[in-house]
């Protein structure tokens, strides 16, 4: 099936989200739509899926002009969409979820479960999806849930599949698996519109690339184009993928973590005897596949999860059982992993969000009385300094794009004196321009004398920022290595390759029996 967009334009007030967009998706190709957050990708997809109506322009399917008034029209025309947030019922089985809304029935309207299961099984076998139709969705990992969404689209005869940032929620392995499935689907003649802002993924899987910037198509480079070429197109200038930073000049030890044991909300031991020391003026990167205790480590440091055993101290002050407010008061700045759930109040204005954890300090309040004028002044300064793009300081934070939301959080956390900066996945889901900005700010914070801890599952980020790299696996620090360590060795550590470690002779590996961790200073 061929899909053509001609001159599609969508305006929201004065903002032109899509400006005369032309797009051709041929049958049997993976077409990547590359662009920064806020470039208009999602709006375009919503137009294509009938969720919003374009102001101008037309859509053609196989040469026939169509109008999608609702997602139903789009589905009928053979367009399927997998959203970033899945639309699944957790207490239903895979088969039940897949047939929901078009349930096969036997006479008297009885649900034909067997047929539903069979259809799912068929599709699963044909494309190697390895889905058990009888599994309950709530028990499935995110990657499998995504495949369930794909099956949902396929069973509705989708010939063009729109995947909206599908890798944002996936582990590297799951991503590879998704790419394999995408290629299978392509081989069967289906087209895939792959929305992403990750250059490497686009290079790896796309046949054609369209780059959007500020609502316009700015180019269709071949997928073989280099990182730098793609990035330049996306952000419209040469960006440094590698942050410029001077060698670290570590000072005194500021953050001390000793033998920390933390249980997660379910009572499972998530952090298992972690010991770390971070000095003023250095960045410690905590690498590891997501879900190996990094999040719990951060939360325990912030007083958001109780510490089972062990000790946390900042600048010699014991904060093991301190409240979050006390930790913040001790000069710790925190950029949480989930910005929309933990970092922001989406219904609050930009200005209010900018003082979310300093509202009770001078000059923003005196006694219990807030000083709205001071809050507004500070917000205007921050917006300019951190290049937060928002209509005004009064608009709700939910109207900001992801990148600008993150800049808001970074602005808030770095606008005060910090002794320790703790950042968990500080650039996840951000576009190249925003990543560069956040990275520069983090390095500047280090140079100003903070002890910085960056938790990231993206190796690029770890390498770009770290002065030392600690690798976390199953709740333990399995090695602290210099940033010169090759990626392959780091990968082995991240995969918990304990048996081969000794023979590989990784740097920083000497004397690493069990839980004891030897620290290696950067070369």
């Amino acid at each position, binding site marked *: 099936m061929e899909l053509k967009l001609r001159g599609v334009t969508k305006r929201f007030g004065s903002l032109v989200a899509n400006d005369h967009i032309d797009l051709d998706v041929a049958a049997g190709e993976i077409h990547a739509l590359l662009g920064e957050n806020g470039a208009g990708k*999602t709006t375009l997809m*919503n137009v294509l899926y009938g*969720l919003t109506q374009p102001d101008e322009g037309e859509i053609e399917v196989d040469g026939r002009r169509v109008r999608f008034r609702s*997602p139903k029209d789009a589905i009928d025309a053979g367009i399927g*969409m997998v*959203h*970033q*947030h*899945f*639309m*699944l*019922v*957790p207490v239903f089985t895979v088969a039940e*979820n897949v047939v*929901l*809304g078009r349930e096969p029935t036997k006479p008297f309207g009885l649900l034909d479960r067997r047929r539903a299961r069979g259809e799912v099984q068929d599709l699963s076998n044909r494309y190697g999806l390895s889905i058990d139709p009888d599994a309950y*969705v*709530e028990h499935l990992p*995110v990657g499998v*849930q995504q495949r369930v969404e794909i099956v949902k689209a396929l069973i509705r005869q989708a010939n063009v599949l729109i995947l909206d940032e599908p890798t944002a*929620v996936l582990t590297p392995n799951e991503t590879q698996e998704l790419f394999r499935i995408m290629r299978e689907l392509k081989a069967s003649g289906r087209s895939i519109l792959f929305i992403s802002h990750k250059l490497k993924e686009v290079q790896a899987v796309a046949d054609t690339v369209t780059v959007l910037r500020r609502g316009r198509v700015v180019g269709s480079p071949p997928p073989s184009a280099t990182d730098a070429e793609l990035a330049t197109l996306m952000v419209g200038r040469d960006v440094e993928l590698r942050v410029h930073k001077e060698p670290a000049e570590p000072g005194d030890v500021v953050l001390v973590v000793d033998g920390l044991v933390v249980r997660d*909300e379910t009572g499972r031991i998530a952090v298992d005897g972690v010991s770390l020391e971070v000095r003023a003026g250095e960045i410690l990167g905590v690498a590891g596949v997501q879900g190996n205790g990094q999040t719990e480590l951060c939360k325990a440091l*912030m007083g*958001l999860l109780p510490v089972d055993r062990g000790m946390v101290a900042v600048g010699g002050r014991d904060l093991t059982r301190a*409240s*979050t*407010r006390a*930790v*913040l*008061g001790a000069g710790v700045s*925190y950029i*949480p992993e989930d910005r929309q*759930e*933990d*970092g*922001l*109040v*989406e*219904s*609050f204005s930009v200005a*209010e969000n900018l003082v*979310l*954890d300093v*509202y*009770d300090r001078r000059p923003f*309040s005196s006694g*219990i*009385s*807030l000083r*709205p004028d001071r809050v507004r002044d500070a917000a205007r300064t921050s917006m300019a300094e951190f290049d937060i793009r928002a209509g005004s300081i009064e608009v709700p934070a*939910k109207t900001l794009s992801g990148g600008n939301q993150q800049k808001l959080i970074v602005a808030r956390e770095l606008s005060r004196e910090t002794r320790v900066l703790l950042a968990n996945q500080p650039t996840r889901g951000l576009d190249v321009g925003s990543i560069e900005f956040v990275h520069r700010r983090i390095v500047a914070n280090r140079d100003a004398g903070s002890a910085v801890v960056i938790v990231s599952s993206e190796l690029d980020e770890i390498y770009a920022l770290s002065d030392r790299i600690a690798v976390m696996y199953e709740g333990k620090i399995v090695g602290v290595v210099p940033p010169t360590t090759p990626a392959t060795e780091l990968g082995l550590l991240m995969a918990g390759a304990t048996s081969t470690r000794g023979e590989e002779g990784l740097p920083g590996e000497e004397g690493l029996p069990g839980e004891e961790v030897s620290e290696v200073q950067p070369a």
Partner: protein
Amino acid sequence: MSSELADQAEETAKSEDGPPSPATGGDGRPGARGFTEALLDAVTSGNTVTVTVLAFLCAIFLGGLIIAFTNTTVLHAWGNLFSAPGKAFATAWDTAAGAYVAMFEGAIVNPHAVSAAFHGGPVSTVFNPLSETAVNATPIILTGLAVAVAFRAGLFNIGAASQFIGGAMIAGWIGFAVHLPFILHAAVAVAGGLVGGAVVGGAVGFLKARTGAHEVIVTIMSNYVMEYLLLYLLGLTAFRRPGNPNPISPPIATNAVLPHLFGSTLRVNVGFLIALAAAAAVWWVLNRTTIGFELRTVGSNPRAARSAGMSPERTWIVVMLLAGALAGLAGAAVVQGTNFNVAPQIYGTYTVDSITVALLGRASPTGTVLASLLFGALRAGGVTMQASTQVPVDIVTVIEALIVLFVAAPPLMRAVFRLREPRAGGGEQLEARGWGG
């Protein structure tokens, strides 16, 4: 519930920032975004002013039909619809219009009283309807604020009656058992009412913070506890009126009575000013203090509040103390302003009224005051309507219910009046929920 989920799943995303996926969203606890949060969303971001006004008009229209067609004369006339169609419509119109005119005269202004005043009659009767509206609105404003302020912190306070009783008991006891000079006596009794309500409300907050007990259950139960505690106290010699077999307290001392604002012929008293001042204070606390900032943050996103170093538990206790104090003031205002004693059933229907006006007023102090004034007017007008047209006063409750019904269904209002949808945002989310449930 399952059909709602099914609808959500089937419809696929209405908007990109729609409800978080049930599979991945929230903090791992299924249904973490529960009823209270959904309701809070609906209450604070749901409707435009237009929808509220149209809902009111629709309720008046439907209420008129009900007034007309529960009237035997009208029904008789409609029995002869084909022989005398004009009469059928005319009687229906006359009945409904007559009832509403009487209601208006009882709540806002009576033209007869105005013309009488021009011809030398008492001026105070001109303002009597407005005075009655204010008197009726006073406890509704205060209890409505008690619900609204809790809403803003994400709590659903169904315990206005219990907190009201707590305030009424203490204010009443100080009123009849203590002897103090004028003004001081009234002030101490009001303060006692405030404290009494705060204790009852604060207990709810404390239980939630300490044990995780859900405030909906605790507040509902506290209503029963306080109702029966009131009955028990009124049976004790310390509380009962000497020589009276009925469970009713002695009258409060004249020094404890809240002074009238415009002379003794108009019932409106200082209690109304207390209510307006309380609304202003609530606005100030919510928007201009660190306490209010914490309260709104906890109500909007408890996880972000925790990450920012706030303590939701502490906030729950604070907000329930505040809510209880407001409802306690309502109890004091009724005891010292209009009833002058403590009696069973003194808490009236304030539990439901308070929730309704907070909902109508979108949990904002200003909105709550306006909604309460509307309800006060309906109550005041309802009494006059019943007296002069024999339409039962209960029709007022029906109209109130209809207003809430229409306000709760903005898509219905938009469909009826062919309004455009509000721009994407909270409203859209509300709509999806509205149809789904």
